[in-house]
């Protein structure tokens, strides 16, 4: 750039600034109560606030009470938690949940993003029809989805084995071996949850203004580059929401396991939910199970914080 020019202020800038300014407001509450309408508004939300405290916070507090007491109701401090650290079944369940999250979350996001891009593209005709077809798995209950896939995985009748036998291969008895059962469960979860990622990411894509793609194209970006520089940063907040939800959905799943493997073979497909269910309702140790609930809660909380921290970045720094 060879042209040099001195800076000129925009008209209306700089001049005419007021000599003194009124003091800034004194904080949230004075702001909130400074209008009569606001006061009414605050009073109107009090009932729902109380309901929220009752249904949200009471169970959490109650859960802590359960953890700190034995099945007989005696105060035992942190004994339930320290017992958990020695419980190998619990360790297995925790690892299984995490393993499943590590496989299912990226796959769901990938499938969801792919579908969202396809439906959002100009080539998809009637978008409403595509969306209503693609979100069918979301409307199916976990148990029903599990039953359906159990039939699909059937060694002789199942749809999954049809192509294998057509190729002359031995049918795989999916749900009987630990590693194939893991894969089978992951597939069910991806089928069940990726529509959620699709829906969120599709909504995110619709937020991206069209003109910034055109600007990028004129500025010299290829489509691929525009996807990296425009689309991905723009849908980043949606991406982090989708990541959290998919993670929570996939780690807490219980209906799928109940309908397919029942935790088997052995305890190979026990996840945290299945462990907690088994502890509370089969072995009747709700106090001990509550400790596992706390661990699950913490795990979700930590993962959620990480996703928000590293994905939800509003703008790129230089």
């Amino acid at each position, binding site marked *: 750039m060879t042209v*040099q020019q001195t800076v000129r202020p925009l*008209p209306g800038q700089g001049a005419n600034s007021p000599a003194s300014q009124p003091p800034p407001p004194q904080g949230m509450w004075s702001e909130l109560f400074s209008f009569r309408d606001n006061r009414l508004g605050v009073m109107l939300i009090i009932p729902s606030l109380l309901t929220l405290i009752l249904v949200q916070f009471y169970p959490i507090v109650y859960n802590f009470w359960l953890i700190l007491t034995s099945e007989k109701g005696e105060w035992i401090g942190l004994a339930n938690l320290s017992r958990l650290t020695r419980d190998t079944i619990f360790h297995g369940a925790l690892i299984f949940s995490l393993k499943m999250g590590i496989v299912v979350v990226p796959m769901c996001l990938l499938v969801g993003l792919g579908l969202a891009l396809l439906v959002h593209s100009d080539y998809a005709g009637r978008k409403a029809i595509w969306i209503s077809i693609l979100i069918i798995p979301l409307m199916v209950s976990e148990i029903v989805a599990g039953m359906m896939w159990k039939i699909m995985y059937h060694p002789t009748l199942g749809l999954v084995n049809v192509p294998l036998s057509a190729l002359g291969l031995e049918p795989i008895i999916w749900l009987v071996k630990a590693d194939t059962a893991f894969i089978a469960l992951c597939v069910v979860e991806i089928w069940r949850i990726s529509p959620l990622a699709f829906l969120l990411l599709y909504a995110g894509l619709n937020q991206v203004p069209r003109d910034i793609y055109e600007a990028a194209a*004129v500025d010299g970006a290829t489509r691929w580059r525009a996807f990296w520089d425009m689309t991905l940063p723009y849908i980043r907040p949606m991406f982090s929401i989708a990541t959290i939800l998919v993670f929570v959905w996939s780690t807490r799943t219980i209906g799928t396991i109940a309908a397919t493997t029942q935790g088997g073979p052995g305890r190979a497909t026990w996840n945290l939910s299945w462990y907690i269910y088994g502890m509370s309702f089969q072995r009747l140790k709700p106090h001990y199970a509550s400790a596992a609930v706390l661990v699950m809660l913490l795990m979700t909380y930590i993962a959620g914080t990480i996703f928000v921290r590293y994905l939800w970045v509003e*703008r790129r720094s230089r």
Partner: protein
Amino acid sequence: MAEVRIEGLTKYFGDTCAVNQLNLVVRDGDLVVLLGPSGCGKTTTMRCVAGLERPTYGDIYIGDTRVNDLEPRERDVALVFQSYALYPHFTAFDNIAYPLRLRKTPKDEMERRVRDVAEMLGITHTLDRPPGLCSGGEQQRIALGRAIVREPVVFLMDEPLSNIDALLRVYMRAEIKRLQHELGTTMIYVTHDQVEGMTMADQIAVMNEGALQQLGTPSEIYDLPSNNFVARFVGSTPMNFIPGVLQKENGKTVHKSDQFIIPVSAEMAGRAAELCPSGQCTLGVRPEEIRFTTDDEGDNQARVFLLEPLGSETILDIEKEGLLLKVKDVASTQVREGDNLSLSFNRFHLFDDNTGAAIR
């Protein structure tokens, strides 16, 4: 820097013809304004040049290259959008730097060029902010900066000033014109604001309903409109139109309407006889070309209906038998509402009623 040549450009959207066989040459280094009402095809034309739309028929050349089949990024044009289309997730710096980043410009050179452009446009203080935290005028300058930072061969501007307030707009249009002069880059500037067009352009291309109406310098467009559309569209106080017919009276040709009898020069009458044998034509006269006296004599008497004082001048709304004329009074004579004036018509145009074309 390059010439832009548009040959027979036609663009259909479904069955709608947005641009109809447009021919236009923008000379190297010229600032050409595409001027016309909404939906006249000016933006579509520009988008075809940018490569954001594909022409249905016709060719577009930038320099000697036919660019029809080139992607926008291969054309080396810069476009400033009406909406600015800034990247909201980038800072102003990154917005301006983006074209350079795509061209893999070395980091220190990029930094220097962005800072130079920002200084030139007076937006250095915004560089660390995202566009959402900048004012409309600053956003507009960021968009401008993004366009000029990479020194393209052609600038395209799509109503870049329509979203900022009136005062800033007057300032910015001079600024853009100055920039274009200094950089010497060919520019196509789209606007529906005829004042913007008149003040900025080297050449104005007036468009209507997808077709080019007239191409000429601002003074040609203003003084010698080629048809009644151009005459009506250009001029901040619009031209007055008086429908009537050419007749011979006492051996002289006059334009006779229900309200006025206006003598026509022999030269003009001769051409009118040739070009418009029916004699059915509308007389067009600019508000500043109507002279008036406060006499009660003379053929063309009319009553002042309303005064519109604008400070430096006053617009007189003059009414006669259902016809409303606007007359510019720059001398601030003491005319009052209800006064009778005697009018004389200094310079005027005749437009064929059948074709709308100017008789000249």
